């Protein structure tokens, strides 16, 4: 193989609403750090000289995370199924591409947290016999997810063996 090789991105993007979902999650995470700091500033006057700059720094980093992460994730998170395999990409700063052959799929689960329900999203988890092999397709449109689960379940039921 002299020619350079690279992985091509899977065909389908996740739902655009996933950006809002990830943003909400990120906002909650940032708030969980910022709120105690702000309370500290209000309650503890002596600490203000160093606590205020610290809080400002955290707020700037948090805002950056809030603006960058969901959009970056949306560019990376993709999925695709062929007749033979499921192929996903996920992550943002560090990224993972996963392939599992249809013949090795053991279970297909759907999961909808309260936030995902609010935005009409679903996460599909495809597990194989490997302890390290689960594929998570996060932030799919609910209808797309239902279709996908149905199709995968049909295909895997048709495959004999215990998939190890």
């Amino acid at each position, binding site marked *: 193989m002299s020619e350079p*090789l690279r992985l*091509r991105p899977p065909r389908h993007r996740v739902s655009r609403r996933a950006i809002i979902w990830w943003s909400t999650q990120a906002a909650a995470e940032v708030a969980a750090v910022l709120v105690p700091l702000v309370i500290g500033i209000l309650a503890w006057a002596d600490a203000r000289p160093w606590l205020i700059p610290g809080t400002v720094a955290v707020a700037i980093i948090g805002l950056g995370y809030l603006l960058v992460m969901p959009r970056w994730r949306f560019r990376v998170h993709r999925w695709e199924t062929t007749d033979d395999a499921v192929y996903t990409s996920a992550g943002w700063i560090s990224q993972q591409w*996963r392939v599992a052959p249809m013949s*090795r799929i053991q279970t297909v689960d759907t999961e909808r947290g309260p936030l995902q329900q609010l935005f009409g999203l679903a996460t599909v988890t495809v597990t*194989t*016999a490997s302890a*390290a092999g689960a594929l998570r397709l996060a932030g799919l449109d609910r209808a797309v997810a239902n279709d996908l689960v149905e199709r995968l379940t049909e295909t895997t039921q048709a495959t004999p063996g215990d998939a190890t």
Partner: protein
Amino acid sequence: MTAVMAPGEPDWQRLNPWMLAVTPLRQLAGLLPVIAVVVVIGIGQDVGGRIYSVLVGVLVVMFTGMLRWFTTRYRITSERVELRTGLVFRSTRSVARDRIRSVDVTAGPIHRLFQLSVVKIGTGERAERREARELTLDAISAAEADRVRQRLLDPLDVGGPDRSGATVASAATELAALSWSWLRFAPLTVSSLVAVVAVAGAVGQLINDVGANAVDVGGVREKLTMAPLWVGIAAFAVLVLMIALGGSALIFIEAWWGFTLVRELGGTLRIRRGLFTTRSVSLEERRLRGVEVVESPLLRVGRGARTVAVATGLGGRRGHGRGTLLPPAPRSEAHRVSGAVLAEDPSPTATTLRRHPLVALRRRLVRATVPVLVASAALWLAPVPSWVAWAVLGLLPVAVLVALDAYRNLGHALTSRYLVTRHGAGVRGTVALQRAGVIGWTVSQSLLQRRTGLITVTATTAAGSGGYSVIDVETAEGLAVAEQAVPGLLEPFVLHEVDGVAHTLGSTA
């Protein structure tokens, strides 16, 4: 026994009647410290009453132990193994025979006195509850245990007549046997050292409790106080070292006495070992997906290694000791046994491996040295004596050596049937994984890896830890290895750049 082998619905069997004696004896042995404490502490005050209450307690325990025999029954049908226990809370546990992945036979000293063995039947499933995975017959006669083991592991026996017997045992080929020269590796295993320290600590505590002064036996203390301090320290160090060497040798002898690894007819690998407690672990070869040669830092000093099976149903990486195919032995022997187990010559684990790019070395150097430098700098600023910061900085050469070692350990190769990958800082693991056993790929890339054009390619498998990685390999090389190892799986998703135009292999064909 005819009932077990008859077709149809066999009768329920009791455990061996000797268990009426064994169970109370073992429980009594377990209770001895408690009894001793109760009696000793109570010296001088109402001795009779205490002994009386202890006696009642012991009798109750022995009675419940004996009750267990009366309430326990098992049977092996053509489809299931079933176990009924309990008098008030009755429970019936049942394991489908085609789910059985392992049959282990162990016998402790008391069991062996009565020629009994404990049979543990495992399904190897990653179930939450332990009971769902295992079924234990404690205990049946050693001969019966061997028959049960052979029946349950014989894939042809399901539903058929009983064909087990001496013929199976005689058709076994020996793959490895203990050589006493391996005893030199005993002190080089961390686990035995830990065990020795624990035992030494317990003994020291015991001596203290009894009231004797551990150091003052034979007036040693008097002589020691006259000698300079360093003599005392040196003497103590030598003492500890001798206990460690002797103790680890004893532990090795107890665990590995009479070790043999054989391949039985019908495709089962069987490991037998043990001096006081004999253990037999059987592993179906159709569950074997590869082997791993594991070299811990201490073992590497003595050029030793262990061989561990990569198999489904062992439960976790390196199988919590159950997958061990070979005790600490010379590295060449570990590779030879790997080859013998996989029926490959030469062993894939001993293949010459491809080096990873030098960028991988830079990553390791950065990862090892930066924390040391940062910690040292932080300690300079912190209100601690400056020598602390210097001492931390002194770790820098060690960090560099660790990084160099971690880089040298990186490697991968493809043989006709195996994907071989090696990595590790300190503990070095060389895995040969069946290419047919790969059930998926995970390619991952961190931000820093992306900047240097490296990826980590993980082959997922149903066996062992679930995934075995080729770490920090060049992107093109890593993808090519994955593509070749399992034709058709990753291929449709890989772009091959030809004259500036990207194709998948499928579209160019």
